[in-house]
């Protein structure tokens, strides 16, 4: 009998001293919001069995769904395994310096743009210029019209002749070995002989898409070619402008 009483108190004391392990979530509460976070930095991945397939992501800070009194917020891509919910964009060289230009001889310089999109989203890259290449308001290098006067900010045209003057660009998708493949760009520039003008926002033109994909990409690159050719009547000076690339995911 004594042993049974001892056992009863032993179990009772043990219950309070060593409570059974429970699934502890994080709970935050205020007058306006209640946020329950299930877990912190434990695991993530895809689990499968014969009957079920489960994907979970545990320990992420931003992605997921939060419920409160006033709203529901989702910042991940639902229903497929979340690999990435971030957008990255890269330009390998920001400064395009042509140096001294020789009339009738086109100069071309390059840089490379690279984009990585979040899971489930494609992307669009727009381009525009703040104004044409100009030394002052009355002295500028005009935007190219291409060899057949058939290109503008939204339509590309062939530009190979040295007698075609102006400033323009193209973008050609390249692979990891820098070989031209046209992925993401071929619908805007059929090949590297096609050029167009940068959309000129000082002339009320809107930024134009120069590269896009409907499906997610990782480190997709394009080589951007900047070409300028001046006539012998072009006034000397320091011609400047700003070229802006805008990268956004597809919704």
């Amino acid at each position, binding site marked *: 009998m004594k042993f049974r009483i001892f056992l009863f108190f032993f179990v009772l004391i043990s219950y309070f001293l060593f409570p059974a392990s429970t699934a502890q979530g994080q709970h935050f509460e205020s007058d306006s919001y209640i946020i329950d976070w299930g877990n912190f930095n434990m695991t993530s991945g*895809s689990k499968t069995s014969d009957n079920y397939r489960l994907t979970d992501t545990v320990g992420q800070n*931003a992605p997921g769904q939060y*419920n409160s009194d*006033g*709203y*529901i*917020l*989702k*910042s991940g891509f*639902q*229903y*497929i*395994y979340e690999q990435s*919910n*971030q*957008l*990255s*964009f*890269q*330009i*390998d*060289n*920001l*400064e*395009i*310096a*042509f*140096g001294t*230009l020789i009339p009738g001889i086109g100069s071309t310089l390059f*840089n490379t743009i690279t984009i990585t999109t*979040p*899971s*489930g*989203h*494609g992307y669009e890259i727009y381009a525009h*210029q703040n104004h044409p*290449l100009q030394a002052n308001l009355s002295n500028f*290098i005009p935007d190219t019209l291409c060899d057949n006067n058939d290109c503008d900010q939204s339509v590309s045209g062939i530009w190979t002749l040295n007698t075609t003057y102006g*400033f323009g660009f193209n973008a050609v998708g390249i692979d990891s070995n820098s070989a031209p493949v046209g992925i993401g760009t071929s619908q805007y520039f059929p090949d590297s002989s096609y050029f167009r003008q940068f959309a000129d926002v000082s002339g009320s033109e809107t*930024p134009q898409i120069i590269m*896009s994909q*409907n*499906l*997610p990409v990782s480190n997709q690159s394009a080589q951007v070619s900047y070409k*300028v050719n001046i006539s012998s009547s072009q006034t000397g*000076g*320091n*011609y*400047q*402008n*700003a*070229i*802006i*690339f*805008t*990268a*956004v*995911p*597809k*919704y």
Partner: protein
Amino acid sequence: MSAYNLTIKPAQIEIIAKPGSSITQAYLITNNSPNTLYLTPSVEAWTPQGNDGSVKYCSPACPDAYNAISYSLGNADLKINQSFTLTPNQSQQLVLKIKSTPDASLGDYYATFFISQFTTDKIRNSDPAAPQTSAKLGSHILLSLSKTESNPASSQIKLFKTSPRLKDIFFGKVNFTAQIDNTSDYYYPIVGKINIVKNGKTQTSLDLAPQNVLAHHSRNINCISPDKQSLQTCSLKAPFWPGHYTATLSLNPAIKSTPVTISYYIFPYYLGLALLLLSLAAILFFKRKPSST
């Protein structure tokens, strides 16, 4: 040589909120480039364009209803349109506050939270011609103002097609295309599947990619890859058994829509052609062979 390499996380947020509510979202901006970047946060509204997730920035001519949504930063030392710097490998958390007026119209509001590289014409006397490139990186905001957490969704399946309709058993793919037309006032992700049936038995099914289709707008379908890791066009790879197949595109019952069924055929074209050529060759061979008598 200066470079630009920036990351924004998350790349998109999707919100259902009551009119008059205030929402806070933290963004992490990371400078991965080897030089300091001068950056400016801003927000621009847009409307959907095309059927593949493209947008058209509408400022300053956005719908009047968009004026009911205001954006500000919760950071103590930073405001919208105020520049800040990020040194190499530095990250900055920006806390965006999105607030709607209590009398805001119910429905969807779309915008992009931009981080723009601050740039000016940089006069470099040694360079007679020198464009200066810079970049702007955006994260989309899809906001539904609603009085309920579960918005009513309705849709119409349009242009459900397969190509080619006559297909060989061995080579190529059977491709499926369609548009989902959102006939409701709120965006929703496409949830559904394409069931492939032959002789009354389901052969396989393709899960539609849960890409958003915006209010009163259409979106082309894509599918989830078999390993659930990525997206791809909706297609089936050869080989196939010959016969008559039907493909039924159906959406989640929560998205009110009528399933659409199309049919296509698989034939052993190349096998038949090969047998025909072999037969012809055999006939020619035996015809030319001189008679032993």
